[in-house]
């Protein structure tokens, strides 16, 4: 039998799921005593090149409260053409299309290897992808120029039928109409005034004027596109126009007096972008991409005043309750984020500035809608340029690695309930029989909306075992969970991905060893970390740390082997051995520690932590340190100063940053130019190796990490 490690890995590869426990304690009481909750990391759209989608629609359980999807775990009566739902045990007729079904002629969804399967829904007109650029013009000329170039470049990466729109803002907000010949036209809004969605739509002329003239039916569908198309145009139509328009973008022309920040109406600009899409393409995949070079300084959502002498809020100010705009701004952006999420759109923020830009207040926009958050020093850096370019990277089919407007539904067998999810999602507030009363993360629902996701987007999903102690589960019984993800594929198809997993129940009393062995400490660490970070958003830092510590202690208490009063006797089994170390690093990570980080940085780090998959998350928690030497292949070393040796090269990857550190001797050799001498080619190779490795990481990661090169004198 394969080891649990292999099992875990296989499961992850096939289903994109990693559970903290792979054998489940069979009662509520025992489950709670396990300290680490039963939970999983789910990567809903994990790339599966080997999984071609099926071109029909799923078969649903007919019980209205269940509606689970036919899956390999279902009992099928081929003769009667019946199947029994494995969640509610309802017996269902196969639909007529399945008339030819038999043991040898099974549909894909019944085959065990298709525990994850993807359906393509044929109904409904495909809706185009929409990209709405929201561009700050209060930038330095260099920055603006670089940004303009990036944007122009991005146009070439978009599919020709994608709709694009452009909103620019500074002191005013301009919504550009893209289909004008001979004159460029834009709608201008004052940056200080909060407008309701209705007002915005009225002002943009998106609302149909009550048409008393001709109530002709046929006219309506025709006009619909024409209205919206004023601001959102298929790229192939207005490619040139938009390129010129971007080229002509000028810095915000309003004078900025000495000692003032430029007036930047980010809040209103976003609000208008949201309102625009809301009015024209609700529930259609769309990205609002906000490019900003500084903090919002006026209007709703302002983060700091325009007086330069008053600096933007710091953690210190926040603790002292001195951040006068924070609460209001946060509220504004939350409101926007929720509206955006409700419409199935997502908001990206690309913030490039040396100082903070208000990510703390705006974080909810990407966080709740599944948008990206990118932070850099300048638009004129490769970090931004490449990161931005990577957004438009394509998969093996030539489709964007992005999906829109997803809903994730979780169904559980009766012994389980779902307690919540943590990730770039919002609750859809669907109360079902499988919703737990206890909430972990975003709970109280069995469905979440993820407006923007990519193949690596990963959610932590937390469960609760509700089976009572006195209602034992029959030996060999399995608990099942079905994840159903509806989403709009980047090819504009609607798709449904269904993953059905099952794990064995085990009685803690008798089978603790089993359960222990099936512990996935990596997944558990990440899942606990997500809980901790989630709490940190609302609770005081020290409280979170104390909570983490207590959990660790309880876990060790439960699973550690030790003799009282004898610290040296403490032992943890292999499956737990790394867990404390993860917790140690987590405690001092920027996700929980704010010292030396600005509020924006904290927000940035936490944003990424909450959406990356397990591997990346682990790197974030515990950076990787490799040591390169002539003595052999690179080896991981301790995150300790003792790892710094004169004849080694160190490569550290913290996810956000990659550092290459040359040992003293190495540095001297390099300075002496040995690498250029043919006889020291091996030294050249040694120097090159970490660079190559770093490059490899850089290529694969989003967002692009910062690469630093340290070389002691």
């Amino acid at each position, binding site marked *: 039998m394969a080891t649990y490690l292999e099992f875990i890995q296989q499961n992850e590869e096939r289903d994109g799921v990693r559970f903290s426990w792979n054998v489940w304690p069979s009662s509520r009481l025992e489950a709670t005593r396990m300290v680490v909750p039963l939970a999983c990391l789910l990567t809903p759209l994990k790339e599966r090149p080997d999984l071609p989608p099926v071109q029909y629609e799923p078969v649903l359980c007919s019980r209205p409260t269940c509606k689970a999807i036919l899956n390999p775990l279902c009992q099928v009566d081929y003769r009667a053409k019946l199947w029994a739902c494995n969640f509610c045990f309802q017996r269902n007729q196969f639909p007529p299309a399945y008339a030819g079904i038999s043991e040898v002629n099974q549909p894909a969804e019944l085959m065990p290897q298709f525990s994850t399967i993807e359906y393509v829904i044929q109904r409904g007109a495909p809706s185009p992808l929409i990209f709405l650029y929201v561009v700050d013009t209060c930038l330095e000329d260099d920055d603006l120029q670089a940004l303009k170039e990036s944007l122009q470049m991005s146009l070439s990466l978009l599919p020709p039928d994608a709709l694009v729109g452009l909103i620019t803002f500074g002191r*005013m907000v*301009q919504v550009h*109409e893209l289909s*004008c010949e*001979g*004159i*460029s*036209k*834009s*709608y*201008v*809004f*004052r940056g200080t*005034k909060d*407008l309701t969605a209705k*007002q915005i739509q*009225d*002002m*943009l*002329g998106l609302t149909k004027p009550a048409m008393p*003239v001709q109530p002709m039916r046929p006219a309506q569908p025709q006009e619909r596109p024409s209205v919206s198309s004023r601001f959102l145009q298929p790229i192939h139509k207005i490619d040139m126009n938009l390129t010129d328009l971007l080229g*002509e973008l000028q810095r915000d*022309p*309003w*004078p900025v007096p000495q000692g003032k920040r430029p007036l930047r109406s980010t809040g209103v600009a976003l609000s208008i972008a949201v309102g625009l899409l809301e009015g024209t393409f609700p529930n259609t995949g769309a990205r609002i991409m906000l490019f900003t070079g500084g903090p919002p300084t006026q209007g709703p959502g302002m983060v700091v005043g325009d007086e330069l002498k008053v600096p933007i809020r710091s953690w210190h100010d926040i603790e002292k309750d001195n951040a006068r705009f924070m609460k209001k701004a946060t509220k504004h952006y939350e409101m926007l984020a929720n509206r955006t999420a409700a419409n199935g759109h997502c908001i990206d923020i690309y913030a490039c500035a040396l100082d903070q830009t208000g990510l703390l207040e705006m974080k909810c926009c990407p966080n709740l809608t599944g948008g990206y958050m990118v932070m850099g020093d300048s638009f004129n850096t490769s970090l931004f340029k490449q990161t931005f370019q990577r957004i438009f990277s394509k998969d093996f089919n030539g489709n964007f690695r992005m999906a829109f407007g997803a809903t994730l539904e979780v169904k559980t067998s009766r012994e389980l309930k779902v307690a919540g999810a943590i990730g770039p999602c919002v609750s859809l507030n669907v109360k079902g029989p499988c919703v737990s009363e206890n909430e972990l993360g975003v709970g109280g629902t069995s469905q979440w909306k993820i407006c923007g996701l990519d193949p690596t987007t990963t959610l932590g999903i937390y469960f609760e075992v509700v089976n009572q102690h006195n209602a034992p589960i029959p030996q060999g019984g399995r608990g099942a969970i079905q994840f159903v993800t509806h989403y709009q594929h980047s090819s504009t198809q609607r798709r449904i991905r269904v993953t059905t997993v099952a794990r064995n129940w085990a009685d803690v009393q008798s089978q603790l060893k089993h359960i222990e062995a099936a512990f996935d400490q990596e997944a558990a660490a990440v899942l606990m970390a997500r809980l901790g970070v989630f709490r940190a958003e609302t609770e005081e830092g020290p409280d979170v740390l104390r909570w983490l510590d207590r959990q660790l202690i309880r876990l060790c208490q439960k699973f550690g082997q030790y003799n009282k009063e004898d610290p040296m006797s403490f032992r943890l089994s292999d499956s737990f051995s790394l867990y404390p170390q993860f917790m140690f690093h987590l405690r001092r990570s920027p996700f929980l520690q704010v010292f030396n980080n600005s509020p924006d940085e904290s927000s940035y780090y936490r944003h990424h932590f909450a959406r990356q998959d397990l591997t990346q998350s682990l790197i974030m928690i515990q950076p990787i340190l490799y040591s390169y030497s002539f003595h052999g292949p690179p080896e991981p070393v301790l995150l300790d100063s003792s790892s710094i040796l004169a004849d080694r090269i160190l490569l550290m990857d913290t996810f956000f940053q990659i550092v290459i550190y040359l040992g003293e001797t190495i540095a001297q050799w390099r300075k002496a130019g040995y690498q250029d001498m043919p006889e020291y080619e091996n030294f050249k190779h040694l120097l090159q190796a970490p660079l190559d490795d770093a490059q490899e990481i850089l290529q694969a990661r989003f967002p692009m990490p910062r690469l630093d090169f340290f070389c002691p004198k």
Partner: protein
Amino acid sequence: MNVNQSAPPVPPFGQPQPVYPGYHQSSYGGQPGSTAAPTPYGAYNGPVPGYQQTPPPGVSRAPASSGAPPASTAQGPCGQTAYGQFGQGDVQNGPSSGVQMQRLPGSQPFASAPLAPVVSQPAVLQPYGPPPTSAQVTAQLAGMQISGAVAPAPPASGLGYGSPTSLASASGSFPNSGLYGSYPQGQAPPLGQGHPGAQPPQRSVPPQASSFTPPASGGPRMPSMTGPLLPGQSFGGPPVSQPNHVSSPPPQALPPGTQMTGPPGPPPPMHSSQQPGYQLQQNGSFGPARGPQSNYGSPYPGAATFGSQPGPPQPLPPKRLDPDAIPSPIQVIEDDRNNRGSEPFVTGVRGQVPPLVTTNFLVKDQGNASPRYIRCTSYNIPCTSDMAKQAQVPLAAVIKPLARLPPEEASPYVVDHGESGPLRCNRCKAYMCPFMQFVEGGRRFQCCFCSCINDVPPQYFQHLDHTGKRVDAYDRPELSLGSYEFLATVDYCKNNKFPIPPAFIFMIDVSYNAVRSGLVRLLCEELKSLLDFLPREGGAEESAIRVGFVTYNKVLHFYNVKSSLAQPQMMVVSDVGDMFVPLLDGFLVNVSESRAVITSLLDQIPEMFADTRETETVFAPVVQAGMEALKAAECAGKLFLFHTSLPIAEAPGKLKNRDDRKLINTDKEKTLFQPQSGAYQTLAKECVAQGCCVDLFLFPNQYVDVATLSVVPQLTGGSVYKYACFQVENDQERFLSDLRRDVQKVVGFDAVMRVRTSTGIRAVDFFGAFYMSNTTDVELAGLDGDKTVTVEFKHDDRLNEENGALLQCALLYTSCAGQRRLRIHNLALNCCTQLADLYRNCETDTLINYMAKFAYRGVLSSPVKTVRDTLITQCAQILACYRKNCASPSSAGQLILPECMKLLPVYLNCVLKSEVLQPGAEVTTDDRAYVRQLVTSMDVAETNVFFYPRLLPLTKSPIENTTEPPAVRASEERLSNGDIYLLENGLNLFLWVGASVQQGVVQSLFGVSSFSQITSGLSVLPVLDNLLSKKVRGLIDSLRAQRSRYMKLIVVKQEDKLEMLFKHFLVEDKSLSGGASYVDFLCHMHKEIRQLLS
């Protein structure tokens, strides 16, 4: 005279003469000259006698009259001459005719030495002599009518002769007419007119008019008088009564009251026609005489026949005054032209009354501001407020600070006093002017306004000559001229910064209506070339004014036309509830730099909105946007708004249709003139603060609420133009012409005007297009050469005759090149302790200007009826005061008008009948509001022609005669169906074609062969190569050139339905809306006066 007196008649007269002799002789004496006439008179005389006989029996008249009337007309001319002779020779005839004659001469003399001529006329004249100005109109109803008939002469005689004559005369006249048959052609009643040919010259005499009055009155009245019996009284009075008075017919005693006698004396009409001054005797209306009058009336039927010529007379015979007997505006204008048009008006002397606005004259500035800048209601101010109250003559000045001058007159010199700024009195802040007294050898000066003694700054010091004048007085405009400018220093600028050159913003409605009517395309096309003609300063090569463009319907579109752009950028602002300007850089640009982009924009605009279906518009946000744009650019400027419809879109300043004709003549009528919401006032206030002037061009198809929309232009010194139902084909020329003129005209921006006065009076009230935030400073966001401010003064202390009263109007403004300047106008007035002096130095045109503005403002707060009554009452009080205090004693039945104010009733009647105060059924609420605000900033010349339109006969004078034909009075009676007339009032221009105009004329003017083929409502005359066509078109062009707005021509055919419209402008007639005819109103006025006097 003798000659004429066709032997036969003479004798009779002769007899009567005896009586007259005294009078006439003297008066006539002067006149004898006119010989030609004689013959005609002869004729009269003939009949007359007969009448005379009749006289005794009232009845007899009838027959006589019938005969006579016609003659009268014809006789008119002749008569005059004849009369003149008569006068000399025979009292009777003489008088009447003589009177006329005399008047003519007299009038001239008046001009120079007013009464001189008058004097000629015996007793009557003499009285006049002093008051030369006053014209007497004897109001004898009967007389009036009669007067229409040639009668005048006869009556006079009659009078002279005695009671009998009067009647006779009347009748006599008729007969004459008959005799004269030929004359009649001229149309008897109009005699004056009929005579035209002859008259003209006589008219030239007009000045005498005043003098005339007496005679005329005398003539006619006499008879009437006699009839009435009152004679004795009247006589007593009449004779005395100066020409100005109109004696009420009945009372007047024949003998004395040459004037009085008038009543019956149909003759007056003639006179009157020529010269207003006359007394109309309407026994009926005024006089106690009524009884008799009526009688006359009946008997006169004959008169009616006379009237026949005019037509109307017949129906009203009994009560009608002969229109020719009452003061004629035309005559007054002609007289003034002839007398004062040739000499330059030199402003050196204090308190001079300038020539009328209708007279072409040159002005030489010798220390007082030209009347082109300032005109006063009176140039002689009562010394005390009691006097002023008594007289009720409003003391007002009509100031047009930036008036354009004819090329022959130099515009004000610019004086630079250097860094210290213009020299001013330390206490009252008056500016250095010619009236300042330098004392102590020139080291100090005493302020002429507040008497404060100020030091002369060293750099300004100059020695005085032996008369106490500075040696350099004539080198310095501010010491020798009435008008000049100072360069302002930075202290006079907003925020202590020199202004940035102003900007023009064109804001174009692009809603469905605007696009469909072709307005948008037309306008954009025009702007392309018009932008080359923005006003520029002096010799500047190109205008410093920057331009910006906005279009709008329910939302606003701003345009970035920065020169560096490849194509214009449009920025839409939909947030009309909270307007703001979306761009700074590139909105206001220099035309030449951004020409390519602007042209591209103007090409694009019509295209972009060609398919618009947006019908709703906003208004207040548009103004706000323009204002904010100027604010952002930190400059003053002007908005040109082209707007089509009631702003009903959801936005501030949204209006609802509240047009409700039912409100007319109710207490709520005033709400039609009031703005709907206060928002516009607030907005206007902000505009003024920014120096943002708004010119509004309206193109409504229906009600747009001009009353509300015009608030902003009104308060910011802008103009409103209205083109109802605009169609490019029909209205293009008018609109473009107005637009060109409006864009090109020189404007002063961000102006503040203050009027300072010497101690004793002060400016208390202001009328015009401006805003006032306190009680003294008139704030004008913009001020152009057409805008006029009327200022009313009140006493706050005694004045003294020696010092007179001084006005100094200082206007601080930014020129169109962005230079800050002060324009100063000074005017010295006399002060008087005698009311007569006041009445002798009044200007009726100015008075009407003031009263119209006062009334038009009044309708905002009071029911229209109240306003009208107030006007009438005030007018009656003015005249009654004169009658009581200045006129020589005469019968109460006599209407006596001051010479200077003899046109007051007719003009006032025009004001009362104007569409604002008495709307006809076809006048819309918008029209009324429009006119109301137009009048508010009109100058004297404009109000003059606006209220009393000019009616020019085109085919009366020989074609070769290229001078402007003499106008005729605005009455249907004056139209002959064989002629073509041109009527203009500054806003409208009609070409009236009589039904029986010669075919040749039709052909050469319209290019069609007959009257019936002329298109009614035609607005352009075909360009034909013949003398008549050229002449008429030339005349139309020159008329248009005189007016600040393009007058669209409307061709009206007699008996066509359009004629109704035209008739509205015949202001001497009864109007359809119930306005009184001149004659009726005069009667009414007389009644009012009598009531006041009793």
